[in-house]
């Protein structure tokens, strides 16, 4: 069955504790390439935006190197994120329970998980992060090309470049804020980081945070024991 909330590679391994496969090695590699690019872009971008951070250009071999390399890292990030987008977009489509979840944001923040509706592989917060990242990265790559003078200078007017660089800065600041939310949530909600390092979470984590996903996964794998019974050690 084509479970809506389940992505390729997701699987439940009964045991004590129950272990759930959440991200394939491909998805994890894809994620960490994107993450590395995003951090490098943030550092080099902040160095070019804030005089007080200009010293960070030393990490890239100086100002000239930073200016030259930043757009190329952006290109890598764009394609890398596009890979993530293709993997994750379907499970990030907005569902009816997401609105109810967002309304109860207070309970989310006060760790009153039991008062929240059951959600699939991603909760509304994660979906907001996903779609924000997607939209912001499109804005950043488009405006970034407009101000990539070395190759694209003749294509736009100076007035257009001024708007592009303003939008680029605003989008960059926003994506850094979104990134802070993303990283903080991963630290705050214990047991999450393992999903992106070893690819697995515990059954309890899935039950607590993504019950609908777990339920779909269990009912789905019931007919497909091959993926469900691999030794987990």
């Amino acid at each position, binding site marked *: 069955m084509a479970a809506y909330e389940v992505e390729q590679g997701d699987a439940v391994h009964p045991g004590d504790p129950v272990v759930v496969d959440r991200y394939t090695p491909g998805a994890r590699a894809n994620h960490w390439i994107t993450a590395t690019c995003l951090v490098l872009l943030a550092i080099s971008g902040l160095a070019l935006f804030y*005089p007080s951070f*200009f010293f960070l250009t030393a990490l890239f071999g100086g100002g000239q190197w930073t200016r030259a390399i930043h757009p190329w890292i952006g290109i890598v990030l764009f394609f890398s994120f596009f890979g993530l987008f293709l993997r994750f977009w379907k499970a990030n489509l907005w569902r009816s329970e997401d609105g109810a979840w967002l309304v109860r944001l207070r309970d989310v*923040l006060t760790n009153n998980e039991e008062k929240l509706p059951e959600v699939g592989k991603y909760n509304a917060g994660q979906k907001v992060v996903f779609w924000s990242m997607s939209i912001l990265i499109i804005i950043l790559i488009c405006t970034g090309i407009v*101000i990539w003078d070395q190759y694209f200078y003749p294509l736009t007017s100076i007035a257009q*470049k*001024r708007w592009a660089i303003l939008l680029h*800065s605003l989008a960059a600041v926003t994506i850094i804020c979104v990134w802070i939310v993303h990283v*903080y949530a991963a630290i705050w*909600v214990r047991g999450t980081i393992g999903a992106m390092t070893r690819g697995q979470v515990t*059954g309890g984590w899935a039950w607590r945070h993504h019950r609908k996903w777990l339920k779909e996964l269990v009912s789905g794998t019931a007919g497909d024991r091959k993926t469900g019974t691999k030794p987990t050690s």
Partner: protein
Amino acid sequence: MAFEFELPPAPTQNIKVDLGEGDLVRRSASTVPPPAKKLTPVAKLIDVSKCIGCKACQVACLEWNDRTERIGFNYGVYDNPVDLTPESFTVMRFTEWVNPESQNLEWLIRKDGCMHCEDPGCLKACPAPGAIVQYSNGIVDFDHEKCIGCGYCIKGCPFDIPRISAVDHKAYKCTLCSDRVAVGQGPACARTCPTHAIVFGTKEEMKQHAAERIKDLQSRGYKNAGLYDPPGVGGTHVMYVLQHADKPEIYADLPKDPRISPVVEFWKGLTKYAGMAAMGAFAAVGVFHYLVSGPNKVQPKDEEDAKRLAGGR
């Protein structure tokens, strides 16, 4: 009769350099202590009505600055090169303009180049500390050692002046011959101009000289003759005497009321501070939330429930 603003010959001994780090009033992406002494503001006055379009200034500029312009292409117009380049810090822009009142064809020749704004947009936009500096005499200069080639100065400039070299990826523009001015000389273009269309001196002297020139032009029928010293950028240290000062745009699109673009002001102003505040707030809320709420931990009951659901061993 000797010309009043004839520039002195090059000094050969007892050379005293008086433009140094201590004379900076602005420094890109950084701050400078206020200079102990303030130099007299200087200015270059370009009298468009006196220019004969000989391009001696272009040659003198290339020669003094040790630049070599590549062999160009004849586009069928006098402008050559057709635009400023990383080598040519100045170009003559030729405009054929029919005066609607007199039906006379007027050949307007404007020597284009850096205007040395009192409020320089290039310096405001520059992210590299010290790559663009302004001296207390008004000269805006680029320090190529510190330039990173980002092209932000191009976006900051209201006059479309800086050019990035494809060879060394650094920005170039007229220096107002800061190295000559530092030793009491005037810019190479002013020194070479055969008609004294380009004159150099203190800004005050140049304004007085301009006033005489404007009076003369007005007496000869150019009733809108005037000085181009645009207040939108705090005035400039390169000024024009224009026959038609009410219509600067007829001189190859010389902006009527130049100012640093509000988009650039917003980008380098509010965006920077609001951005820092937003990022700081997000991080602070994260830390605060963690301190107040603590980590969200999976409970033993959750694991039990999961086991029940998935069927544990």
